[in-house]
């Protein structure tokens, strides 16, 4: 660890998430506009590398070779590393991890990580088809395996094994939607969802209702990461990358093992905590992958915030809300913000930067936050990616 360079996020911005009347390329332009507005000291010529998180542009935008397209749209001419990262729902965090690795290794000094996804198509069924090929398409997808029925089975097993309730699931959604009401970039910024309302929404994949599921969303976000010696040029409030970890467990659903014990997340977070030199109780804020309400409940457990099976009580007791053990998903989560696959991980990092800087509205602020964690799962929770940010460099 001593011979790699320290790296910090020194700024970032999220473009409006939602059902947007714009193309993939226009989302890239918006991300560039938002980034350079948020980091006034950053000049386009400073950026030596660009990492583009994009899950399915070939299917959602009928476009390959998107890294140079994004660079052109953002007004960048990367001259060290230009690449796209694809890891389905974790494509955005993959871009950040790659930028971090490049800077830490001395191959880049100033790198932008941008995440872009255009998911709302004229045909929703066609979009759902693309979501189904995130799974093992000829073996699982062909049976109709998309994310909702898979995570519904996860919820069914968690309810059976631990007594988790529909009210506890709805409490996750209500919390994250409430936080989204303070985030103008969130898809559901202006909509309110209390528990009773959520429990009346239609069933999508039993036991999961509409309000238990994140949305098909268009959106983009960008952050800039720099080497230690460049940090003060851009900000007085950097978010230092202090640890990271990842674990890939299986792909075909036959090889998932227990649906309720996410060993991959336990492995990935243990590695990230070890590198940061902290443990779960040190966290002040976490942005975790609430693609479905049940996901956030199991993530409490696998991250070590509570014992296995106790995630339902963790939300019910308010321990992941303001005034609790830590604030989880203050940005509004995937449930409140929508889930443009490639953009989600970047938007979470933007939130983490702002949380550690103390610049988010009070309604969702983790007070005096020093340590934050970002988690993404991808696919059928078969891959977990974790990053830990600190207010201090060491």
């Amino acid at each position, binding site marked *: 660890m001593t011979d790699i360079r320290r790296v910090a996020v020194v700024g970032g911005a999220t473009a409006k998430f939602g059902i947007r009347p714009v193309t993939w390329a226009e989302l890239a332009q918006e991300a560039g506009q938002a980034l350079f507005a948020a980091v006034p000291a950053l000049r386009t010529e400073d950026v030596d590398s660009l990492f583009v998180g994009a899950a399915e542009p070939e299917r959602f935008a009928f476009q390959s070779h998107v890294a140079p397209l994004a660079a052109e749209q953002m007004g960048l001419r990367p001259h060290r590393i230009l690449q796209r990262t694809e890891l389905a729902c974790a494509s955005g965090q993959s871009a950040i991890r790659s930028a971090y690795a490049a800077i830490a290794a001395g191959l880049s000094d100033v790198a932008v990580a941008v995440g872009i996804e255009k998911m709302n198509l004229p045909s929703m*069924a066609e979009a*759902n088809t693309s979501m189904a090929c995130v799974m093992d398409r000829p073996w699982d997808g062909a049976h109709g*395996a*998309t994310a909702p029925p898979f995570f519904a*089975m996860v919820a069914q097993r968690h309810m059976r094994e631990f007594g988790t309730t529909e009210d506890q699931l709805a409490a996750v959604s209500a919390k994250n939607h409430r936080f989204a009401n303070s985030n103008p970039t969130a898809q559901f910024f202006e909509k309110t969802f209390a528990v009773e309302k959520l429990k009346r929404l*239609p069933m999508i994949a039993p036991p999961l209702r509409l309000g238990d599921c994140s949305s098909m969303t268009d959106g983009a976000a960008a952050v800039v990461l720099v080497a230690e010696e460049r940090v003060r040029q851009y900000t007085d409030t950097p978010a230092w990358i202090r640890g990271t970890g990842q674990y890939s467990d299986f792909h075909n659903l*036959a090889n998932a093992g227990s649906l309720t014990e996410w060993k991959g997340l336990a492995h990935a977070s243990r590695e990230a905590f070890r590198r940061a030199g902290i443990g779960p109780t040190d966290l002040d804020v976490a942005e975790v992958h609430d693609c479905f309400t049940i996901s956030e409940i199991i993530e409490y457990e696998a991250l070590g915030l509570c014992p296995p099976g106790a995630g339902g009580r963790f939300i019910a007791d308010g321990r992941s809300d303001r005034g609790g053990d830590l604030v989880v998903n203050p940005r509004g989560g995937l449930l409140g913000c929508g889930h443009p696959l490639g953009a989600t991980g970047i938007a979470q990092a933007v939130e983490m930067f702002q949380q550690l800087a103390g610049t988010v509205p009070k309604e969702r602020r983790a007070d005096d936050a020093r340590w934050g964690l970002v988690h993404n799962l991808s696919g059928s929770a078969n891959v977990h990616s974790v990053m830990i940010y600190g207010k201090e460099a060491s």
Partner: protein
Amino acid sequence: MSAPAARSPPVLPREGGTPPPERPPFLLDFYPLEESNQTGLSRFYDGLREGRLTTTRCPADGTVAWPPRTVCPKCHHGNLEWIDLPRSGTLYAFSAVLAGAPLGMEADVPFAVGLVDLDGVPVRLFGRLAGRPWTDLAIGDRVVFEPFDLPDGRVFYRFRTAP
């Protein structure tokens, strides 16, 4: 390994031609390319046509894999043998697709899906659940494996719940 008898030859778009209307464009087609000129696993689909559920086992280290493979995931041995799997099992978990179905599956909504523990082997398969509606299903219910023909000459499989 010969191609199955009494089946039409592989139907693939060639030389600027278009695929037959019953088979969607490849990038919207969930079902596998099953023919022996497309996959080393065509024997699996031959097995379905005979009513069998098969997979591969490594003769070197005994690894039983799902899905079937051409190379052992543990020892990378390349000449795997085919074995029959049990054709009945119990429901480990299930749900149903009530909205948001992909192309070609919209007419099936609502449909049930589940994870099935096959009898007597440590193999748990995901599949469509035909038979009783999802509202009448319970974890632990008995199900049987059921191959079926696709309109374009291919074959696939599902599970059927007991009446």
